[in-house]
């Protein structure tokens, strides 16, 4: 019988294995995720039109001070806030309600689940083209239907109605996704708990309020998280539906970035916008995970299973 390898050699072997397994993913991650971020951060400190090799005209934080001073940036932030609030207060509760409904034993619920989830599978661009036809003020389907009730709207063509219209399209596309998350979360709740509550004489509302909702907590928190991160980066839908207009009234930060980076050839300034978006997402993600999702993530993050 051979003697067992010394503990030191054993540990070395383990590290080697870990390194080898991590290497391919690490290389891709560095190349495709970290490097672009670093280039954007680097470019954001320059006045640069994107042509001719690396930027040379260093201007420090000027791109950022210029950005924070513009009216458009303030508007972008306001639109972000409005969309986040609408999503959290209307879209997510609506999805939750539909999910609870489709958890009941009703005829054809599989079909409903499928139909409600279908918009999420469509690409954003197709959704955008589809709704720009439906919401067309002149000949769109929406106005044809509304005219039956004697009302009509210019939807995306009117600065006053463009944000609600945009939110309507967002909701149409994403409520099915959140519904699915909630359904999955609901199905993880053991039926015994609900039955026990019912035996104790709890009404349906009380059961929902004191059993279902608290146990859905982790699911709701992750769904809010996804929704907010999505809204910070919102681009495709707005670009196709309105291009940020009329007169900047539906512009988001990603649209502003596109305008400056590609239409105006101010790549340095556009990089600064992208960095602000990144920092915004990062800060939100960290704060949210630290304070809101702390219990949900216990043991799942980098504590090394409590060995450190």
């Amino acid at each position: 019988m051979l003697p067992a390898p010394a503990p030191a050699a054993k540990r070395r072997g383990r590290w080697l294995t870990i390194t080898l397994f991590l290497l391919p993913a690490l290389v891709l991650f560095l190349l495709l995720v970290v490097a672009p971020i670093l280039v954007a951060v680097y470019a954001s400190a320059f006045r640069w039109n994107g042509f001719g090799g690396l930027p040379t005209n260093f201007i420090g934080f000027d791109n950022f001070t210029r950005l924070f001073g513009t009216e458009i940036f303030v508007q972008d932030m306001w639109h972000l806030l409005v969309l986040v609030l609408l999503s959290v207060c209307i879209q997510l509760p609506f999805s939750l309600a539909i999910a609870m409904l489709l958890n009941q034993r009703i005829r054809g619920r599989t079909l409903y689940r499928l139909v409600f989830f279908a918009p999420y599978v469509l690409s954003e661009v197709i959704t955008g083209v589809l709704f720009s036809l439906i919401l067309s003020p002149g000949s769109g389907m929406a106005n044809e239907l509304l005219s039956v009730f004697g009302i009509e709207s210019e939807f995306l063509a009117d600065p006053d109605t463009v944000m609600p219209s945009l939110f309507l399209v967002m909701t149409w596309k994403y409520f099915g996704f959140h519904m699915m998350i909630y359904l999955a979360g609901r199905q993880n709740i053991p039926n015994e708990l609900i039955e026990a509550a019912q035996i104790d004489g709890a009404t349906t509302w009380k059961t929902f309020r004191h059993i279902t909702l608290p146990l859905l907590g982790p699911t709701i928190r992750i769904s809010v998280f996804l929704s907010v991160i999505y809204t910070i980066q919102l681009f495709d839908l707005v670009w196709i539906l309105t291009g940020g207009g009329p007169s900047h009234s539906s512009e988001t930060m990603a649209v502003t970035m596109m305008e400056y980076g590609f239409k105006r050839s101010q790549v340095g300034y556009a990089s600064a916008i992208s960095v602000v978006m990144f920092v915004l997402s990062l800060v939100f993600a960290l704060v949210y995970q630290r304070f809101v999702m702390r219990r949900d993530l216990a043991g799942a993050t980098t504590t090394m299973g409590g060995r450190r």
Partner: protein
Amino acid sequence: MKRSLVLIAAAVLVAGCGGGGGGSATTQPGQGGAPGKVTLEWWHLSTTEPLKSLWEQRAKEFMAKNPNVTIKQTVLENDAYKAKLTTITQSGKAPDLFATWGGGVLKQQIDAGLVKDISGDVADVLPTFTPAALSAYQFDGKTYGLPTDIGAVGFWYNKKLFEKAGITQPPATWSAFLEDVKKLKAAGITPIALAGKEKWPGHYYWAYLAMRIAGLDALKQAAVDKDFNKPDFVAAGQQVKALADLQPFQKGFLGAAYSTPDGQAATMGNGKAAMELMGQWAPVVQADAGKGLGDDLGFFPFPSVEGGKGSATDAFGGGGGLAVGADAPKEAVAFVKFMTEMGNHSKAVESGGVLPVLKGEESAVKDANLKQVATMLANAGGYQLYLDQAYPPAVGQQVNDSVAELIAGTKTPEEVTQDITEVAKSEE
């Protein structure tokens, strides 16, 4: 959403890493003896007939004449073309052949070393072109492209709707124009179709009014001095506002695109609006996006403004040309010359797809309306390229943005000139 953001990030990254790595891998110019196989990448934006199939045919003919050449076409719609060309040029590589409008955008690409100076190669054919057509592609006495089209912007109107509103003659002055807009409105007709979502059609109004009120020289001087804060330019903005205040545009114009099924061209082509201010391609797009007006379509030049310093014959517009990428093989230049030969180009003129760029080609124009545009061009005292093409991209986009804000009523005429001046001053 995530995916496209990653794409943009990747594009920005590519832009960062670009530069030195130019040159298309597919092109290997022949070295002596038998010519080697060459693939030419040709990017253009003629997505509508008749040019779409005409260009296709030209490419086939050229390939038949030069068996070693393969031409690969990339055809994109206007906005997509601009975005994609910007992305690829920022990566330090231009297609072998690409459609260009000349002006400030081409200048920026030349400064970045992406465009070939073809002065020597085309010196023999240069005298055959009209000077107005060539001007957008020449900088400091060097030629960087040859024109395939030249045109001008003017009012396209629906004769039947004008008649219905009791207008017997197209207006020759701005005040008569505003009167006619009121008459049309009173008759229950939408006077003007406008694509508010795309911004560039709106800037035509401000640009033309600036040319008529301040004069062509003052407009050119303002671009040089980077100062648009002049009373005359503010007055141009006030006239745009006076027009917008009459609410002459179709319902929901702020969200309307140009060539979509419910856009500006379709509104006009389906007879739902009486006029549009558009370039020489307007009839083609009207018939493509809508039904087209046929004989009911008429054309009149932008009216003169009473008391204005500009001449009523000054024309505003642009054409299209073909430029050659810096690393393109010599066959690319040969193709540009082939495309603009009298025999080949006049076929495109006859089809009604483009207007004459060669001297003596005018007789090939068949369409009565296009003939009017060609005559207007021939008599033009001065010529101004589209502002969003003539100026550096940031300034051009600011003009578009500011005029769009003016029409939407969110900015005043004074703020428009201030905003444009500010951006112009910040550009080198």
